[in-house]
């Protein structure tokens, strides 16, 4: 089997058994980046070959010295460009951070490094994670490795396309409203958005703080579980970090007997592409055959999640992104007269249209006279959505849903109508509002040759249940890889 088609865990075990060295793996990944990056634009920054190979050699030494024994030691990884990496450009795909080199690394990245990860570079994304297509990047759009006329999804589009195109063995993404699960489905890869508080947000450049979570993107469920074990940790630097057990890989069992799976009828109605619908319902049938109990139910409140999300996420973003002002770091406008002019010009030149749109909306909904009507209303709606999920999880172990209503749209088709773009997040967004875990797994290919993703949604802290179901499902199908991954 060609090296780049291996999963992260397969590669890790071969490095351990000395069949492959960490340096060889790193070189193979760098070669693949060289050959396909022009076509897909997955990366904002690819590290210098020397830096990567030197790190790989050091990791190899530590593996040989018995200091690094984990399943991911020596495996090359790509990091979404909204996670701080010490001394390495971290741009959030924005002009305003286009020259920013953080003085520290995010906790998730440190956890990976401790496990012997070899970082290849930083992946492209929608600017500040605001978008569903990776077209809002200051560094140009990323393209879908399955068909470069299509978007990879977003906002973690670069991470997902890098995995799908074999430009890395796995990647980290972040998910605020579906930003791991939706591009995973568009790119035919697997991604987990963990329960809020599972992976430290320290060093993740915030978009919507109450919704953001870091998670793995990889070729299969096994990889995702192992990566999640590695990056998840209780972090005293993140007050919203939750103390829990980190043994997700123990759920990699091919067994769904007696599992109760709910199919929300309101997720399968108008707006859902018929091929996607069929593919996801086939997953249900497959699992039913394997012994799961599948039932339809009404989740309710589905259409309220997106408006509530846009109020909450935009409000938090308007505040989180206030710090980009040309004073401490990042871009500062060339010519200005006085302080406020400097602020305005820096920010107007430094942010792209979608980011400005959300900052304006967020500032408006928090402004005097509107807070109750918009912000508090959205927080109350969020409480009701959480209650609806609580009710569902009283009856079901998990919910099965599409990851997105369609497969990947064509480049340029989404940006013209923001609301249409926002509607693409309808199946993922409420999961963030309720802090739940979700996993997206490939479940078919449509008539255009584009991958389809199914999503398992679990109750809070029930990652193991959805990992087990997704793993069991995965056992029934072949690995799905784009032609680019050779």
């Amino acid at each position, binding site marked *: 089997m060609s090296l780049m088609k291996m999963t992260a865990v397969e590669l890790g075990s071969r490095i351990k058994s000395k069949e492959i060295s960490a340096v060889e793996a790193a070189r193979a990944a760098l070669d693949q980046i060289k050959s396909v990056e022009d076509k897909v634009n997955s990366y904002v920054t690819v590290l210098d070959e020397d830096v990567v190979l030197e790190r790989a050699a050091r990791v190899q030494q530590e593996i040989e010295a018995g200091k690094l024994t984990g399943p991911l030691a020596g495996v090359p990884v790509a990091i979404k460009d909204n996670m701080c990496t010490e001394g390495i450009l971290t741009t959030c795909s924005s002009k305003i951070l286009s020259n920013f080199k953080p003085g520290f690394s995010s906790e998730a990245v440190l956890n990976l490094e401790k496990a012997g990860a070899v970082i290849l570079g930083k992946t492209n994304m929608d600017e500040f994670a605001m978008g569903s297509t990776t077209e809002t990047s200051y560094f140009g759009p990323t393209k879908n490795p399955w068909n470069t006329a299509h978007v990879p999804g977003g906002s973690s589009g670069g991470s997902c396309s890098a995995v799908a195109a074999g430009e890395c063995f796995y990647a980290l993404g972040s998910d605020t409203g579906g930003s791991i699960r939706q591009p995973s489905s568009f790119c035919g890869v697997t991604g987990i958005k963990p329960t809020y508080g599972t992976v430290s947000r*320290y060093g993740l450049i915030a978009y919507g703080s109450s919704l953001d979570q870091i998670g793995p993107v990889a070729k299969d469920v096994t990889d995702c579980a192992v990566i999640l074990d590695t990056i998840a940790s209780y972090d005293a630097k993140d007050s919203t970090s939750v103390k829990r057990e980190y043994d997700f890989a123990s759920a990699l069992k091919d067994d769904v007997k007696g599992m109760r799976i709910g199919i929300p009828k309101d997720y399968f109605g108008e707006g859902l592409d018929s091929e996607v619908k069929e593919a996801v319902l086939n997953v249900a049938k497959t699992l039913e055959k394997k012994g799961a109990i599948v039932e339809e139910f009404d989740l309710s409140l589905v259409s309220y999640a997106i408006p509530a999300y846009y109020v909450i996420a935009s409000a938090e973003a308007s505040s989180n992104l*206030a*710090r*980009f002002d040309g004073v401490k770091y990042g871009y500062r406008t060339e010519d200005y007269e006085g302080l406020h002019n400097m602020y305005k010009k820096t920010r107007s030149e430094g942010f792209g249209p979608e980011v400005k749109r959300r900052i304006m909306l967020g500032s408006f909904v928090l402004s005097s006279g509107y807070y109750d009507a918009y*912000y508090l209303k959205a927080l109350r709606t969020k409480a009701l959505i959480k209650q609806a999920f609580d009710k569902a999880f009283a009856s079901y172990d998990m919910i099965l849903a599409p990851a997105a209503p369609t497969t990947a749209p064509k480049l340029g088709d989404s940006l013209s109508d923001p609301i249409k773009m926002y509607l693409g997040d309808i199946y993922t967004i409420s999961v963030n509002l309720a802090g739940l875990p979700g996993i997206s797994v490939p479940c078919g290919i449509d008539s255009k040759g584009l991958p389809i993703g199914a999503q398992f949604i679990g109750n809070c802290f029930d990652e193991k249940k959805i990992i087990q179901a997704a793993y069991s499902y995965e056992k029934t199908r072949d690995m799905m890889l784009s032609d680019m991954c050779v």
Partner: protein
Amino acid sequence: MSKEYEMVIGLEVHVELATKTKIFCGCSTAFGGAPNTHTCPVCTGMPGSLPVLNKQVVEYATAVGLATNCTINQNCKFDRKNYFYPDNPQNYQISQLYYPICVNGGVEIETADGGKKTIGIHEIHMEEDAGKLVHDEWGDSSLVDFNRSGVPLIEIVSEPDMRSADEVIAYLEKLRQTIQYLGASDCKLNEGSMRADVNLSIREKGQTEFGTRTETKNLNSFKAIQRAIENEKNRQIDLIEAGEKVVQETRRWDDNKEYSYPMRSKEDAQDYRYFPEPDLVPILISDEWIEDIKSRQPEFREEKMVRYAEEFDLPEYDIDIITANKKLADIFEATVAICGNPKKVSNWLMVETMFLIKDRGMDVEDISFSPENLAKLIELTQSKAINGKVAKEVFARIFDEDIDPEAYVKENGLMAVNDEGELKAVIEKVIAANPKSVEDINAGKLKAMGFLVGQTMKEMKGKADPGSVNAILKELLGLE
């Protein structure tokens, strides 16, 4: 037409808490330090950094709330206050609006006529301080130093219960005393660890409705507060008398020019868009925690007063002065612990220390001498190693520079001459040189004694003990 007006004043008092570290990060709160040397990603608003609350801040804020008769909000939360300014690194300040830690309290003050009055406290909330801007006098830029950014503050918001500058000062004194006793802050107005913003409006006496208020900032001393209040009162009365309207605005006081000016700008919308801080979790303050904080509270002034009377047998007058300020009480206790003699220690503090504070234009908070050196000085006077006049001089040096009095007295040859032989010889010389005075004394004009003592002290360069000189003189003149 001379209408009678009355002021309605409420205060917003910011107090820097005496924690070792900042409110949301492990940076030191120590004063001084080169610009930005007490900073980290959190207090400079680096992307990706997150705040974690310093527990001690909650304990101090709770303690102040309890001491000012507030209700503790047992489920309190932080909010973000959004505004752009370069000293505010995230361009939002983490503060409390919706669920502040303490509400509905009050403290009692004495009014000018000797009566008592309660000044209500609307709320106390916790928040982070901003950094410092240094304005370049000549250039067209300002420098930003984040060393103070993230230093914990409590803001104590009073009800509009004050009617005069005197009441304002009495309220501030009371707050300062209470907070200092708790050890929650040193409350130095001149260094900014206590800052008062004055909300003031004017109405005709007898009216019940409030007038339009202004907020005056940048008040760095009690004197400045007093001056600013008088100035603002007159400004508002002039406006009203001229048929104009008072504009609700924030004004900045310039104490040198004794003038305030509006801080308005069209870029300043004053719309802070508060919302719950998503990076911090709620604070639950249990009954047990409150009891624990109470049990760890230091001795309050009232308790100290009782103890001083019993333990040190001090007169009420002394106790009143010494305990009025925690710092003075601390120095008193530390000094007595070394050299005993509570009354002597009290005298030095009440008389000479107070005189020098006034003379040097300082605040009690600024006292920097060590109890050890005051104790040594008292011992030197007790053993008559130096006389009272020398002691005062030496104390001034202790007060200003905290010198070691033993070493100082030795180095400068200030030891009193208690060698009777040497003293006798000098006095004999003085007697011989002043026959006229001796005659006068013998004729019963005892006033001349003073002249001879003075002459002797002069010969001795002030180092003799006047008591001993007197005694020997009398002996030699056969007056005993």
